[in-house]
């Protein structure tokens, strides 16, 4: 009898412990999937455009939004928001939003976009993002689409952009393009490097390299040297159109917001396949004056991809 009682007691205990274990192992089953949307500054289109696109795209989620534009204590604000809501995912737009969330390091998955320094966050656990610039391979493909006769592309680079260039070389090969490259060191005279590139290239491609584009004067100098030889400059931001770039390929901000929405939605089922995505959409700016002035062979079929045209 005692033995039977002991067995029964042991069984009850094990059932009770098992029950406890099951309860702790069960994930929380909230009624709704709540997403905290953190905007670095809603007054800036760079942040507001992807946020609006995100809000239009995301389906089946409860959204809590916060604008850190005027906020001098963003981490406190965000901690309050996290305490007040049962958040299952966080979308951060811009470095202020992502930096503040990173400081709090919540266990919640984080999706981000419009962050220049995205590389700092790419190895964080539960962090998923859309990079800031169009993939080098996609940029090269667009160059070739507009100017099929351009084969040799010159690039001035430094240690900072060495990795980008390594990837770009493989992509260029796949696109049957040749990259002519010259590496510069900090403080080194660049005129001879630029001249050498212009001598051997059909176009110059500028990368977001702070050592190459270290000052306005040096950037203007590069454009002027290229202009004197009637060699087009291809850029990664429409800002360079004012300096005389012929073509610029930059990320379509609304598309990055839509990509972020799909990444957040996929978090409801499983982790996204990749931590990092390149922007899937591009904005193309073209300077037709330069095309005519340099007598470039433009594929007119590519014109239906142009978002901004300089023709005056």
């Amino acid at each position, binding site marked *: 009898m005692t033995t039977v009682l002991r067995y029964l007691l042991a069984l009850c205990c094990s059932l009770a412990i098992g029950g406890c274990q099951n309860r702790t192992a069960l994930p929380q089953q909230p009624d709704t999937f709540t997403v905290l949307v953190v905007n670095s500054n809603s007054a800036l289109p760079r942040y507001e455009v992807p946020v609006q696109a995100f809000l239009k795209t995301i389906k089946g989620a409860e959204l809590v939004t916060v604008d850190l534009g005027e906020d001098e204590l963003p981490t406190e604000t965000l901690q309050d928001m996290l305490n007040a809501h049962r958040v299952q995912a966080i979308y951060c737009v811009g470095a202020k939003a992502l930096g503040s969330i990173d400081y709090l390091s919540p266990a919640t998955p984080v999706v981000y976009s419009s962050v220049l320094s995205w590389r700092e966050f790419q190895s964080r656990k539960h962090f998923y993002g859309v990079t800031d610039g169009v*993939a080098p391979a996609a940029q090269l493909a667009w160059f070739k689409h507009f100017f099929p006769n351009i084969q040799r592309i010159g690039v001035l680079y430094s240690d900072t952009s060495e990795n980008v260039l390594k990837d770009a070389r493989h992509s260029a090969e*796949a696109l049957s393009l040749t990259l002519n490259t010259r590496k510069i060191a900090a403080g080194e005279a660049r005129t001879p490097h630029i001249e050498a590139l212009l001598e051997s290239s059909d176009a110059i491609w500028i990368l977001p390299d702070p050592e190459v584009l270290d000052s306005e004067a040096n950037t203007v100098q590069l454009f002027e040297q290229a202009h004197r030889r009637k060699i087009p400059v291809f850029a990664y931001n429409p800002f360079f159109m004012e300096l005389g770039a012929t073509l610029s390929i930059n990320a379509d901000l609304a*598309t990055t917001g839509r990509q972020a929405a799909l990444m957040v939605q996929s978090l409801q089922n499983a982790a996204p396949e990749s931590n990092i995505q390149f922007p899937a*959409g*591009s904005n193309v700016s073209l300077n037709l004056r330069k095309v005519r002035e340099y007598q470039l062979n433009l594929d*007119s079929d590519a014109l*239906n991809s*142009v978002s901004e045209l300089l*023709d005056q």
Partner: protein
Amino acid sequence: MSRPESTTNSFSLALKALLCACCLLLCCGAVSTQAETIVVYHFNPESHSDRNLVLKNTFDQYFQVSHNIQLQPVDDRATFAALIANKPASLFIMSDWQYHQLESSNNDLTPYLRGIKDGNDTFRKLLIGKAPLSPQHATLAVSGTEDYVYSLLGSMRLNTAPLPMQQLRLLTVPKDIDALLAVSFGMADAALATENSYEKYELLYRNEYQLLKVLGTSTPQKRLVVALYRQHLPALQVALEALLDMSQSPNGQLGLKLLGLDEWTLLPTTQDRGGQL
């Protein structure tokens, strides 16, 4: 003495009256000139609307040479449908699909011009991916509006099993080439793109092109159409002629290329309906 004074006064009054009449006529003329500005509305659900500004600037530059015509791109279908429902004396550039969506509720809306590219007035859309789409979930990169995309997919001839329509997630991108690149770089499982874009991709990125397969083909889609309300035809002749003449000038050709066209052609049915162009 009083009589000449009175004659002078009368003359002066008559002069003033004449002057006023002239001013009035001038003012009315100015008002009527403003009123005569013809607006050409544009909405195309087959492509993304991030190009409205470049379209407007280019078309207005072409029109302003000798016409009082303006292009007004429209962002969304509801606004475009509301504009059409008001039956204004305007031209409407739209996709053929959009025209058929609207024609049943706007009986007098008549297509007059059709866009032509490479001598064709039709194109096909292809569904392109690296492998058949997963029945669990699939992301489709598209450059058109959601309603247009689902309508197109619904009538597509597929080379694979039926599409998991409920599980599809659409990623809207600005252009067909973006959609194809999204598949190559793993942001999407498949893309919807025109045959022409797919052919361009072969020339552009042969290695990636070779990894892609055509998963489905749409029925031939008619290219852009220019429609109007027949009762406004006399007032809109000048604008229709300006559109037809676009292929004759560099500015006009640029506008056409931005729309992905080489020229406009007068629809044969237009002549049967009393078109006098």
